[in-house]
């Protein structure tokens, strides 16, 4: 199809030389928010789209997690046994009683797709941070925590560190120099899956997780 490519580019080039360049100011101003303001904004925005937020400490978030999944009477919880959260989750499970089964799968998705789609109640992942202005999580999935963890099970539980909240999306990109190397897949998540396709009425849990639970470590 190189002919198509050449034809298209030739047609565009026939004119693009005459178009004056556009003066573009990319110096977008970042709001002047402190850590506490970022936390409040983040929680407010995420809660407004039906995300459940729990403000926790670095020392006890896993206990809160255990309590939450127990209350929900889940059968199981998918986690990454070699991921950044594993040690604390496993410790909490060792101490806890009558907790849902911890599920760890390290094979490629293709080998346990049926189970992931129809047998897992919830999954927990870490995040790369969050965006205060609009209330969104930033996830750059890894081999340890694949992207389907935060996508397929009906409940997604995410752990965010308050220190990793950015003011805006533009700040996240600029501060971390994303353009130097994007991952296979990066995703911003602001709440549980939803649709307003019928009569513009919001309905939750259409394809992605029905619930999004955030543990915010302050």
């Amino acid at each position, binding site marked *: 199809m190189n002919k198509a490519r050449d034809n298209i580019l030739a047609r565009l080039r026939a004119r693009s030389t005459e178009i004056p360049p556009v003066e573009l100011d990319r110096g977008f101003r970042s709001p002047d928010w402190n850590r506490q303001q970022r936390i409040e904004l983040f929680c407010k925005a995420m809660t407004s789209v039906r995300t459940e937020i729990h403000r926790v400490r670095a020392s006890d978030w896993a206990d809160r997690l255990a309590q939450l999944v127990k209350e929900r009477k889940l059968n199981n919880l998918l986690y990454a046994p070699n991921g950044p959260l594993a040690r604390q989750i496993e410790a909490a499970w060792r101490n806890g009683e009558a907790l849902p089964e911890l599920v760890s799968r390290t*094979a490629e998705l293709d080998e346990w797709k049926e189970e992931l789609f*129809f047998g897992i109640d919830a999954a927990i992942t870490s995040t790369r941070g969050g965006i205060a202005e609009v209330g969104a999580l930033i996830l750059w999935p890894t081999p340890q925590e694949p*992207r389907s963890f935060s996508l397929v099970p009906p409940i997604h539980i995410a752990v965010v560190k308050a220190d990793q909240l950015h003011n805006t999306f533009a700040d996240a990109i600029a501060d971390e120099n994303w353009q130097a190397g994007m991952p296979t*897949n990066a995703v911003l998540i602001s709440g549980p899956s939803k649709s307003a*396709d019928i009569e513009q009425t919001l309905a939750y849990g259409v394809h992605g997780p029905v619930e999004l639970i955030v543990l915010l470590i302050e």
Partner: protein
Amino acid sequence: MTQKAEFDQRVKQALDNPQLRRNFRVTMDGLMEKRDKAFPDKAFLEELRTIGANIRANALARQPELLEQLEANCTRNGIQVHWAETIEQANRIVLDIMERHHATRMIKGKSMVSEEMQMNHFLEAKGKSCVESDLGEYIIQLDNEAPSHIIAPAIHKSKQEVARLFKAKHPDIPYSEDIDTLTRSARQILRRKFHDAEIGLSGVNFAVAETGTLCLVENEGNGRLCTTVPPVHIAVTGIEKVVEKLADVPPLLKLLTRSATGQHITTYFNMISSPRKPGERDGPKEVHLVLLDNQRSRIYGDSELFDSLRCIRCGACMNHCPVYTRIGGHAYGPPIPGPIGSVIEPQKFGLENFGVLATASTLCGACGEACPVRIPLPKLLHRLRYEQVREDRTGATIGQGSQRSGKEALIWKLWSWIHATPLVYRSATRLASLFRNRIPNRIGPWSQVRTTPRIAPKSLHQLAREEGFKHE
């Protein structure tokens, strides 16, 4: 039948359907209100619109080099890039990929370009199954319809209609008019389809040249599923969707979601930069990007109409359009309705087929005022009105001059002569005043819903003289 007669027929059908009228009115009122609330600070809105317009204008100004950069970076990342001049070529590319994988099952995320390609139609004729997974698209696919709005494709249907449709197509599911229940039913039905699909198809909201990243804006998670679960992901997009830098994305995203649904951000914003890498445990093993031209490079050649390529497909122009609100999306005909559709679709599919759409506007300006990237929509509609009746046919728009009729041209020539010749004009108005009572009190369709305007006994020209106003 002429395109005008066909359009009139579709319009009549819509206007005569009170349910449809109500659905559009209520939805458009809601969407306008949501957008308004999403931009409480109007000065900020205007600033952001300027930034958005400039980002898009910059990307267009440098489009050929950015497309090459996008291709180079995607290729480096492992995304296979395909170019298609026509929708036939684009469909063929998609089919070839499916056949190479012996695939028959495609799950689709929302893509207006695939609507433009009539991809489902094409692939189904080749024995492939294409399942729409966006809830709205799924509903209209069940009813064998086209989208009536670019972001709310099934908005013409009431929940009762959706409930009856679900019952008819899935008799095993209990009848319900509850929107949550209907939504959960769709989740159940489509879950298996995601699981089984061999090909995932999506559109693209922004393609970032700098990093070779494909951005996808969505709320349902079906976009994520389509681009994560099946072993092969095909993204189709128009060539105009390229932007220069990753830093260009946040302002555009902000404008897009707030203008479309009043959301500060959608539930998911996907940035896809490569297929599954060694060691990664999920994600498609192949990612393909199909770049479709279909007349875009021709539109690009016109220094004025070119502005229509800035569009980021938010739908705000249709939400704010009083004509769209009355007739809905299907009356327009082509995949994209509303003001932006009336500008770009006749340029893609020819003025000889859809030129009438440019006349179906009062030029009230609500669309141009709402457009987040400042596309001068009324001006472009105006330009297409000229293109379709112009005599010289020296421009590049398809179907130029095709709507010129001898009779209409003669009327305007006569009109022009009267109004360019003061003496003739004054005589004509004097005659009209003299015979004002002889003028029939019904003048065509105007008088079916309105009284006929009465000519005054004395013109302003005459009154001004009598009241002593000087004439020079």
